[in-house]
């Protein structure tokens, strides 16, 4: 498990073909790890009837809505939380 709650992470800005469970709108965006959810077989493999092992750690990552949508109209502290697999996340420090 590479990340802990409170860690600042960025979702990889990547656009692979095939079945992916990382929504477009969070790719390239930075957020905070809210919690670790355990490890699960990789859905990008399961989708093609492969075993998806070893299981990958899954995190809930919290984003500020105004970081996701430049024209976001709600409260500046409105957030969105999505489940993101570890291989889609990079520590923000590594990018600087």
């Amino acid at each position, binding site marked *: 498990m590479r990340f802990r709650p409170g860690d600042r992470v960025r979702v990889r800005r990547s656009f692979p073909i095939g079945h992916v469970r990382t929504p477009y709108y969070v790719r390239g965006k930075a957020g905070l790890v809210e919690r670790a959810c355990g490890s699960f077989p990789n859905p990008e493999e399961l989708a093609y009837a492969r075993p998806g092992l070893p299981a990958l750690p899954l995190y809930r990552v919290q984003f500020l809505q105004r970081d*996701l949508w430049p024209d976001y109209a*709600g409260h500046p502290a409105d957030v969105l939380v999505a489940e993101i697999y570890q291989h889609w996340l990079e520590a923000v420090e590594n990018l600087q």
Partner: protein
Amino acid sequence: MSTDHTDADAAHAHGAPRPDQDDTITYYRAMEIAVRELLIDKGILTAGDVRRQVESMDARGPKGGAAMVARAWVDPAFKQRMLRDGSAAARELGLEIGPLRLIVVENTPEVHNVIVCTLCSCYPRMLLGLPPDWYKSRNYRSRTVREPRAVLAEFGTTIPADMRICVHDSTADMRYLVLPLRPQGTEHLSEAELANMVTRDSMIGVAVIEASRANRVSLAERNCSIGFNFRG
């Protein structure tokens, strides 16, 4: 004599018979029929097994989720356990949830939670029954993450400007249940009466439970000592 006969005559009188109301056979529908028929031909399932399973899925409703919410309202220790581990809390109440990994998110006077699955239509069916059609619509899925306040307003739910919103996009292996705020004026209600007030939409987070509903329910309970009710 029979009404059928009369209807047939009437149809004749109006010209050609109406076409069947069946939907078109799409690719996936044809695939479902083919797989189902193969499973039946090979003796793995019977047509009765399939029918019973469909019936049991259709019969599921939001009662399980409502029972969890009502228990959390009356038992603070249970609420803490439920927020820590939703699946364990559901099992503690004896609810059949299979391998469901449940996260319960709590509404407070400061934060309102709403659930969406942008990628498909993930939903805690074991606790809420089949998802409503709008939950699976592209409109709800694409707009709830981007403009939750506008979407909630279309459901008649106005979130005050100084209240924060937390949208949960159910993108992977977790499923979500919103613990709504307990309405004021419900202190006199029993756990079963509270459970009757908890709506499906409040547990998805597109609605809140209004105090007026609490009063209506308790009035109905008082005025109707005999009769149909949903407590089981």
